[in-house]
């Protein structure tokens, strides 16, 4: 099978998120037994899920001393459990702060975009379960790329409207 680069990413529309954490629940129970979506809290003003953006030039991959983190053929940033030594370099390297420290397993947790589902033409769990429709799994076109990579559209029509 030819491995085709998958150019889709999870996009969050801040206008819609109601902070219900169903995305966290789906990720935690459905697959990883630990949640890879984290909820950012802006005081008590807003609560929003933070996802791995599977960056073009991922800082976490560069920071990882063991090659546990790699950008794979599909274009996803992937982590091999067995290679991870739990040094937390990636946690500090990620500019979006989406890799969490999972103390129990002594390795770090990392969203893999539900690759098991995406390769079977299904959408990621957190996107499927999102109660408000705030999360979507979209093709990144050239036009939208800039917005998404720099984080503008992970956002919304009005950035952080909850004030």
């Amino acid at each position: 099978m030819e491995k085709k680069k998958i150019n889709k990413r999870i996009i969050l529309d801040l206008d819609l998120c109601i902070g219900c954490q169903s995305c966290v629940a789906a990720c935690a129970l459905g697959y990883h037994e630990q949640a890879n979506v984290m909820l950012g809290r802006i005081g008590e003003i807003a609560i929003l899920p933070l996802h791995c953006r599977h960056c073009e030039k991922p800082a976490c991959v560069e920071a990882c001393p063991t090659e546990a983190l790699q950008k794979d053929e599909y274009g996803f940033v992937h982590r091999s459990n067995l290679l991870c030594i739990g040094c937390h370099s990636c946690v500090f390297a990620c500019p979006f702060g989406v890799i969490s420290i999972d103390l129990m397993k002594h390795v770090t947790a990392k969203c893999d975009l539900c690759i098991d589902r995406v390769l079977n033409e299904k959408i990621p769990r957190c996107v499927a379960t999102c109660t408000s429709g705030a999360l979507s799994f979209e093709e990144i076109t050239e036009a939208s790329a800039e917005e998404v990579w720099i984080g503008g559209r992970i956002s919304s029509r009005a950035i952080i409207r909850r004030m």
Partner: protein
Amino acid sequence: MKEPRNTICFFCSLGCGLTVNRGEDRVYYQPIATNELEYQLDNPINRGSLCGKCNYLFELLHHPKRIPGPRILKSSGYRDVHWENVTTDIIEQIAALVEKNGAESVGIMLSPYLTIEETEQAIDLAQIIGTPHIDYCALEDEPILAKIRQGAFFQKRLPSIEEIDGMHTSFIVGDVFGVSPVLSRHFLKAKYDQRANKMVVLESSNSNTGWFADLHLRANPGTEVMVLTGILILLLEQIGKQQAIPWKAAVKHVLDSIEIEDICKLTGVSLDQIQSAAGLMMREKPSIVTLVSGFGVYDRADLVTELCQALSDATDSYFLPVFTGANSLGMHEAIANFKPAAGMTASQMIEAAEKGSLKVLLNFGVDIIRTFPGTRATNAIKKLDFLLSTSIFPNDTTGFSHVILPAAPWVEKTGTTINMLGNSLKLDAVLSPPGHIKTTGGILSILIDALHQKGFDKKQIEPPEAAAQETEEDIANHFIEIKDLIKDNSAVESNQKMLVPNNDFSHSGDGAITQYLSWSQRMCPEPIAMIAEGENGVHISGMVRISSSENKITIPVKVSRRAEKGMIIAPVHFPQIRSLLQWEMLPQWGYLNIKPAKVSVEFL
């Protein structure tokens, strides 16, 4: 072979669809593996969405705390027994007590999470025993349902949930995203689809729903009736000239005698806001009035229901009631068709047990102690001669039961339910109950068969009287009640606060189940009260002693933007919090009016 099976979520009355890919060949206690839960992206109700507690439902299946088999209370404590022995024991006890005290000393209480089929079986059981006392127990839904059934006003039912997506004005009473988060998908679609679409929310605290409102009517706790009356007064002034509304003449003289300035003063909602709300309701159609049930949120939920229906009637909007109990609507109809006038409601059964006239309670799935406000229910069930409880997990009520029978949650059941739209939906068991556990339906058939063998036969019980059509005079009378309520409301004294219950959705739904889900525990692990910044000098967190007329408790408190001044918000699914609320029976209806309580608060 794995065969995907479709079922619906039974934690609330929306009925979101989900698919389970788990074959019967799987070992029961194997943890859920990848791909076993599938989201139904084309389901018109939820388009794949499920809220957190539903995502966690598989935890139930191999939960270590589940009651594994029947238990009987002996002098030495609870003993595990076989089904045959327990059935004989139950039947003998019931037979002896019916002989001694009469069939009317027996009550049957049902949780609103049973299927229609199970409800019908329970009605059969009532007929065989010969008692008219059977009721579902959903205290927050009951006053709403009672009013909807009476059909006091013309009611416009929504044809489908998707219809919400196109509403120009959504008028929402209560925290809808809190009770059924998946509805946010539809309400927010309506809100953002067109610039002019508006969401009006009537709610006292700054909940998630209020957050999204274009117009948030932040009424003082328990004053929803007044705000709605105010809106109706303004609407009638405008509409009255153009069209005739059948009940208008009857209520007009009542409404005319209410001063809108009084309403503004008592509710804390300005005349401007009431006018805007009325204006938005008069705009281009379609629009919708949504009433969300909540425990202890409204003062006189029945009148709030009446007014919401009047509002939808006057503005030709849809009316959507959102219930907490998954099958409250279906069970309400089934029981109302059977229940004779003499039959008691769930709350009346507890009062009868307190007085000693109810001796036997057959309780199918209700955690009575966790459900009722105050502490009266606890004392009442201690007085029973015989209490049978079915339950999935041990709870406060099973601790006082003479017999405990292990029941199955909805994932292990097949049957029919009626959702909030009045549509009937199918539940399909995605697994069979493990070991000695049976569905409530299974338990009911065992009991019915055994009673037949003991010589009990179905008795004719007087059918209910057909509900009389409400006359204009009746309707006017309700409005007089509303008028009294507006006069009666005395302001909170300076050292008091209003205790506003928070119906946290991670715990709403079948509370007997959700308290055992790790997700719910993570979301709200302990009762923490919320107050507004700077109240009584508290800036981050602390401890607080809350005393009401019913009880006194000490819990942690934190500052939150959810609360307004003069308010203390607390998660109501915890029994401590419920114990503060007041037992207030409305004798003519037989259900409780559970309203925000006035409490005194002492910061420690």
